[in-house]
Every structure is written in structure tokens, then in C-alpha cells.
């Protein structure tokens, strides 16, 4: 199956060294080829499965609970500024 290792790496924000690139290209290719075998099966009458559990309609009620997760998360953040996480300046997305 065709894919571009550079694009996959870019999307996953991975910096690959030239040596890693060819090795991963081979590995990923083998995985995709393996999965490709499924395409030889006729699945026309099988309903697509989005979940392996035989469950549906799991809800929670609209109730508020408080959590102190923020304090712990901020403690472990590489940078913080008061109540906020601090990240490098990023130009607008897109």
C-alpha cells in the first residue's frame, strides 16, 4: 500500500533521521500490507463496527462535580503562569 513516510511523520510531529526513515517505511508498509488482506474479504453484508463492546447509549446525567485535577496538572506542566499553562508562542492555526 502506498504512503509517504515523510507526511506520516509530519502529521505525527516526528523528526525522523534518514536511517530511521527507511526502517520505519518498511515496517509500516508490512503492517499496512497485512491489514490490506482484509480487503480480499466480501464485507458487503456486514454492518460497520465502530466499537468492539456490545454496548450502546451509555450516558451520564447533566450534573456538575468539581475536580482538583488542574492544580496537579499545573504542577507537572513544563511551564505555568499562575492558573494558566504556558506554551511557546504559536501563530494562529491553519
Amino acid at each position, binding site marked *: 500500500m502506498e504512503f509517504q513516510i515523510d507526511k506520516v511523520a509530519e502529521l505525527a510531529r516526528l523528526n525522523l533521521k534518514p536511517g530511521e526513515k527507511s526502517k520505519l517505511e518498511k515496517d509500516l508498509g508490512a503492517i499496512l500490507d497485512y491489514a490490506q488482506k482484509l480487503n480480499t474479504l466480501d464485507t458487503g453484508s456486514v454492518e460497520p463496527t465502530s466499537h468492539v463492546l456490545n454496548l450502546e*447509549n451509555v450516558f451520564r446525567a447533566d450534573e456538575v462535580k468539581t475536580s482538583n485535577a488542574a492544580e496537579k496538572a499545573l504542577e507537572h506542566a513544563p511551564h505555568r503562569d499562575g492558573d494558566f499553562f504556558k506554551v511557546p508562542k504559536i501563530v494562529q492555526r491553519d
Partner: protein
Amino acid sequence: MKYEPVIGLEVHVQLKTRSKLFCACSTEFGAEGNRHTCPVCLGWPGSLPVVNEAALALAIRAGLALNCKVAERLKFDRKNYFYPDLPKAYQISQYDMPVNGKGELLIETKAPDGALVEKTIGITRAHLEEDAGKLLHEGIPDGSLVDYNRGGIPLLEIVSEPDLRSPQEAYDYLTALKAILQCIEISDCDMEKGSLRCDANVSVRPEGQEKFGTKAEIKNLNSFKMVAKAIQYEIDRQTELVESGEKVVQETRLWNDAKGVTFSMRSKEEAHDYRYFPEPDLVPFTLSKETVAAIRKTLPELPRERAKRFVRDFGISSYDAAVLVQEKGTAEFFEACVSAGAGAKAASKWVLNDLLAILNEKNSAIGDCLVKPDALAGLIRLTESQTINSTTAKAVLIDMAATGKSADAIVKEKGLAQVADTGLIERAVEKAMAANPASVADFRAGKQKALGALVGAVMKETQGKANPKMVNEILLKKLSS
């Protein structure tokens, strides 16, 4: 060659729930930074999202009000991208099985010749997704601050078909959409608080051509007026490009309201690749016909139906009715005022012309107004009984809005009741005529306009309290004698 714009809008509205879409954090606006976060919305490993039942019900409610086909089966998907406003590096959204499929919205819009026309705008879909966090850049030279309080708040993304053909139509679509969403109480639709946001897709094509031109997506639109302005700018920019033989680039552009221009965020070197896949942490949903029917039963009268009823039952113009139903609070105020005994035409005029002007000036909502519907009806009664004239009544209304007092109380307190004493008015008229001989001569020489100055003088003499009809009659009688 003439060019035709093609416009589609993506509207995000925040659904009115107490807790977030997938966790129990509060959705309250304005909390301290990151106060409303938990392991789920911070994306901690091992945490699991669970769908808020109320959010799904509100989404279905909106779908039904927009005539959407509500799904029998729906699921959630991951939309993957890296940006610090997403702690998980993906947003839980809906890709190929949204809660609401195709629908439509009937709008009333102004044709180029000014006539009101109806137009049906297609809705492509309206799906559920979680909001992202908020990045703060202002005044921080060496980075950005992230607040995840908004992250995970339930949004409904309503995507229109590219059926809109002018900035005016886009404006009217948004107005109609907001009126419906507020009417069915699924969202506050407050653009200032970000509970309603809009992006516009704009392209142009030669008139008569079927194929769409290349589109640009415009963001950073903070009011409906801005949407219309930005679309007009974009139409002009793209038309100019095409006419000079250049190409429109597919890109995201930001509206700069101060300069009145859109500018490119960054050209897309590669098309987005969000790599959607089914969210493995959430099970799929099946909606029974009964569930959907039960929600449909709770839908109130929608704005368009309400406007039609106002025209039919109250005899007001369809234009006034359309404006009254734009805001639910305004429509309810008007109806309550009529129920309190005011004539419908007078109530409509006072609400639309005077009360809304006062509210606009104070930038306050009709629900917070100190003038209540029965109090406005009281004011209208005083004008109809000619206790006060309309100029005085306008001043009284301003007083009522400031103090919350009744019209009766203000009129009594300030002695504003109209003077209908013939003798008193006659004396004022005589005084005015004596003081303005030139106007008297002008009028007698045939200048109708001179009457205005004399009426003004009489009103001044009586501190604006004279019954204008009587002033006119007495003046005319004295002038012709």
C-alpha cells in the same frame, strides 16, 4: 462579466448544559483559569469520556427545529490535530454519522429592489462536538497562556449549504437561525461570550456558471454585521482577482475589523488531514422514534409561526412581526403588553421604536428592563386617553426605564398631564401669536409652514403639556378670524 458570490456559513453554538459534553466539569462562564477542568477534559491517560444526555437532547431539539433528519444511529469520531488548545491532540467530534443530517431554514430577506422575499437555505448537517480551550496572547511577549475551562463544553456545529448569495442573505440567515435557537432555548447565542461563533466560506463564479470558484474561509467574525462586512470585502477582493486573471487561493483568512479587510492566515501548503476515526472511548448511540418524538413534542412555537400569528391575530405588519420575533424576549414582551390591554399596533410601535432604542443605548436586554409589559401598556393608555401627548410619553418612558416607576406615577409626580383646558390654551395661543407677528403674517399670506413655529411657541408656553390637537384647532380658528 458579472460575478456571483457563493456563501456557506458554519455556526458553532454552545449548548445550554450545566456540565461539559463528556465530563462533569461546570460550563459556567468567567471562572478562574483552569478551575473547570478534570482528568477527562485535560486528557489524562486512563480517563474516559461519557456523553452528557442533556447535550444530546438539546442537539436533537435544534435538529428538529431546523427540519433536519435526525439520525437513527450516531457515533463520535476523533479529529486529530496538534494545537495547544487541545490537551488530547484530538477533538471529539462527529464525522460520518452526525446526530442531525440534512435540514433547511426558511429565511425572509431583502431582494436588491428592497422587497421582502422568502428563501430556503439548506442545512447540510448539525453535529455535536467538544469546544477547545482558550489561548491568551495579549500582553505576553514570550509565549501564550492556556485556559482549558472552555475545553469540552458542548457545541453544536451547524453547517449551511452554499445557498447564500449576498452578505444581506448571510445576515438574514444568521438572524433567523439565532432567533430559532434562542426560542427553543438550547443556547444563549451570546457572541460576546463566545456562545455563538460563525465562520464564512466565500467564493465567486461567473454568473451562469455551475461550478463553484475556489473558496476562502473567513474567521474572527464577532458580530453578524462583521460577517456581512467581511463577506462583502471578500467578494470584492476575489472578483478583482478573477477579473485581472489571477487565481483565488484556497486558504483561511482573518477579518480585521479596524482596517475593514481580510488577510491570509497562512497559505495551506497541504490540505488538512484530520485523520478522523471512530472514538474508541465512546459507544455508539441508537435513537428510538419514541425518544425523538418526545423531544419534538416539547418544541415551542417557532419564530416564523409566531410572526405569522402576530400578523393574523393582531393585524400588525409582517415587517414589524418579523422584527418582533427576532428576539424571544421582545416577542414575549410585546404579547404580554397586548394581553395587559394595549392596542397591538401601538404596543408594536412603542416596543420597536422606543423601548428597543432605550435598551440599545444602555446595551441591556429586554428581560432586565425596568419597564415591564403592563407598565408599557399603562403608558400607552395615557397616550390613548390623551392624558399626555406623544412627546411627553417618550420622555416618561425614559424615566420609567431609569426608575421602574409606573407611567401614572411619573405623570402625577411631575405634573405632566396634558392641558385640555380650552381657556388656558386660548390664552397661550393669543400670547404666541402676539409674540410672533411675522409667523402670523406668513401664515395668513399662505405659508403653511409658519404654523409649525406657532405650535412650537404654544407648546413652549404650556411646557409641552397642551393637547396638540386642541392647539392646532384653536390656532387655526384664531388665525382665520
